[in-house]
């Protein structure tokens, strides 16, 4: 018998609300499922210090910080997507614009900043865009706008900066490493100076990728050592199951046992919400009976689909983009080995297997690469010290796509 759950339902005593699938789109805060505990943890951390929020792409970082921003009644929060920013002047400009927009009394809040700008420019600045003088004087202007903001009554000011690593990457390319370093240092200094200022850094490329390249250029500071690093994990399986069920309801998909289907979806995609969205989206167009095997087939087909609907190719290409040329073959070699392992293996075992594939001159280089692959969330170390892919789904993709299935 087919079951239609209609508009609402319950699972494990959780009230479920029907939702439309939206892979890749912008979610309403109420549709960000299974993140309440993490958000509480983040607010708790933010009571004391700023935060670097890291995770693999598609894990839901942006949805989490947008939800925090949207549901921050009584707090002064500013959410910015910094992908558009390519110079320090644009960075200051975007902060001024966001702050003025967030506060209806914006101009008055930024009085100190406006007066400094007028002095530097030699005349009143009326437009949204900052004059050229801001190219040189961006640092004092940045300090001025933050100072204005934290001086206003109302408590702590929170900046949610999405795609901050990408902004730094662009500034590094456009204006040089020194400027990127100065931005990081200035932001750290502001955090030290103003106890009521909090920042959340996040982005689709890891901040450590940018920091590593700055270190290669001689940067010796530790610009985020005052911030708490919090990792965004995949959803708990029960939350992923709830999400799948809500989407099945929202899309009015007819299945015999929605809970079994939802559970299978959650397990098949390791609890990653973005993939849950994709699988249910495919089910919404499905012709024919839907059973647990259908889900497994859909996921298998996704993994070898030339159109790459799950954006899996990213896991290979990002290495070519952000790693040094000489690191690429080492990273690929390690991941190739781990992709064919059914259990986690020790570092020694991993290094031995690698040695049978390529000449190894420096064991430390392998250690560094293993560490980098952990930071980039490809692999993880278990309590016994052994290494494995972090997500079995990505391991499957890697193995398939690299032709290592047999």
């Amino acid at each position, binding site marked *: 018998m087919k079951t239609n759950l209609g508009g609402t339902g319950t699972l494990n005593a959780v009230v479920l609300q029907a939702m*439309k699938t*939206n*892979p*890749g*789109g*912008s*979610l*309403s*805060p*109420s*549709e960000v499922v299974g993140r309440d505990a993490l958000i509480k943890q983040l607010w708790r951390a933010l009571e004391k210090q700023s935060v670097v929020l890291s995770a693999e*792409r*598609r894990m839901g970082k*942006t949805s989490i910080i*947008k939800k925090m921003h*949207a549901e921050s009644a009584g707090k002064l929060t500013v*959410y*910015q*997507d*910094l*992908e*558009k920013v*390519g110079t320090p002047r644009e960075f200051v400009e975007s902060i001024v*614009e*966001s702050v003025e927009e967030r506060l209806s009394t914006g101009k008055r809040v930024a009085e100190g900043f406006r007066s400094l700008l007028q002095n530097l420019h030699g005349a009143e600045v009326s*437009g*949204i*865009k900052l004059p050229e003088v801001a190219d040189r004087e961006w640092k004092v202007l940045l300090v001025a706008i933050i100072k204005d903001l934290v001086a206003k009554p109302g408590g702590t000011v929170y900046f949610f900066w*999405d*795609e901050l690593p990408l902004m730094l990457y662009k500034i590094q390319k456009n204006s040089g490493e020194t400027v990127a370093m100065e931005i990081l240092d200035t932001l750290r200094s502001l955090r030290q100076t103003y106890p009521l200022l909090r920042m959340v850094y996040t982005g689709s490329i890891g901040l450590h990728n940018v920091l590593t390249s700055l270190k290669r250029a001689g940067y010796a500071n530790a610009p985020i050592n005052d911030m708490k690093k919090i990792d965004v994990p995949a959803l708990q399986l029960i939350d992923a199951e709830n999400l799948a069920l809500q989407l099945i309801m929202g*899309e009015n998909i007819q299945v015999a046992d929605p809970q079994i289907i939802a559970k299978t979806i959650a397990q098949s995609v390791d609890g990653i919400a973005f993939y849950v969205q994709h699988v249910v*989206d495919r089910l*919404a*167009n499905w012709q024919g009976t839907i059973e647990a095997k259908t889900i497994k087939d859909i996921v298998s087909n996704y993994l070898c689909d030339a*159109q790459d*609907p799950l*954006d899996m*190719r*990213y896991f290979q*290409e*990002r290495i070519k*983009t952000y790693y040094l040329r000489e690191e690429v073959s080492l990273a690929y070699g390690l991941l190739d080995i781990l992709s064919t392992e059914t259990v986690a293996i020790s570092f020694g075992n991993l290094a031995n297997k690698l040695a049978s594939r390529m000449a190894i001159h420096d064991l430390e280089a392998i250690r560094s690469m293993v560490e980098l692959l952990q930071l980039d969330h490809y692999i993880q170390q278990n309590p016994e010290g052994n290494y494995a892919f972090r997500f079995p789904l990505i391991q499957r993709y890697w193995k398939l796509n690299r032709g290592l299935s047999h």
Partner: protein
Amino acid sequence: MNKAFLSRFTPSLMSPEMLEAIFVQREKLAQRTVDQIRDSVLTQTKHYSLLVGPRGIGKTHFVSLIYYRIKKLEELQSRLVISWLHEDGYAIGSFLDLLLQIFQGIFEENKDKALQEKVKAIYSLSPQEAEAVALRLLKEYLDKCTLLLLIENLDEVFKGLSEEGQQKLRSALQENSFCTILATSPALFNGVASQTLPFYGFFRIQHLEGLSLEEATNLLLKIAEAQGNEDLSKFLATGLGEDRVRVVHELAGGSHRVFVVFSQFLTEKTLDELVNAVMEILDDLTPYYQARMSYVSPQQRKIIDFLASRGRPVPVKEIAQYCFITNQTTSSQLKDLQEKGYVSSESLGRESWYELREPLMRHCLEVKKNRGESVRLLVSFLRGWYTRDELEGKIKGLPENSFSDREYLQKMAYGWDIFPQNPSASLGMIAKKILKIFEDLASKEALLEMVYWQSVWTELGEKHDEFQIPLRLMNAAVQFLKGNRNKRALMELPIEERRIVREWFKEKPK
């Protein structure tokens, strides 16, 4: 007769009633798309959809239909602003240009003069200031409304925006959640497929499929009904009507546009006779296919022209050689052409063989060279071949061992009292009947008998044009079996003929 306006090349000109009346194949997708837009307007969720499919696959029809369905939903109107960036007529070179085009689309919808005045004022600012002011104005104008942005040829828009403009657009969408997008593109493009670019993984991508035979017949039926052509409707509903449509389907490759054009030449009589109707389609579509050539680079044009002249699949190496391009460049150009829907490929071992995806495009490009004679022959042959007639039943009804009876087959070959003195129209019929027998031998893989009858019929028929296609099919089938089912033998045939031989052997393309 009520002749409702049917646009062949600009579906957005059609009335909502006509768009609905002739809508086929994608009702479920349309309902989901409307639901997603409703969801985007009524909640904070925002959906971004991208429809991908080659030109003529029905993208503009779909977008137009969605536009009218959304306009009808009363509950949305107070919270919705629409801007439709049509496929032609916009020149976008920056994020500012895009914002101005969005305003233009809004004016077309709501004729808001106050907004028009505010936008005019933007032109007195520097480009940087103008961009910031325009974005702010858009946000203020929308207030709590959601912008439904309909964008055709998103690939072109993204090309104009460049990476910087794309980053600005993405930031604006992320920071404001004020917009839902329904976009189209003839192929996947770097802006959404490259992991280093901002819109990677952003859109819900829907690849649009061509029409199946049943859907194509349904489309023609709906057009006939919408235009009050009752005779044609009745004919299309018959098995013979579907047989005739199948011929066009074999040539058109499921293109919506071709069937819409085809419908204009149809009456019961022309559909049944078919050859002239197809010649008229070719005539009508030639400028369209020529225009399609302008969307590709000169190097790609050269490749298309070469493939059209070959009329069968060609390996990359040979294409590279005859076009004087390196293998590597040829491969990447072919990949791009495949994504844009111009060519299709088949793998043979480790080699990829390419040909034009739509046989009709090949015939359009080649029609002047042979004055259309080869198309006439092909249509005539396919018309006969795909007609389910009584002979088929008769042959299938014969006992199993009848086909090893050479005497019987000899009678079939020589026994037609009308052959070879009769008019050429009958020759086509005879050729078909002989080929039907050959098909049966092929399906049983009776190689010796196939070789024997191939030689008999080559001798009898090779001087007659009507036998050229059947003989080609026989030769390919014999070579295929002789080579231990080596697919290379099938590659001597164009796609529409290869399909027939494949069916004999239940072979699937790779």
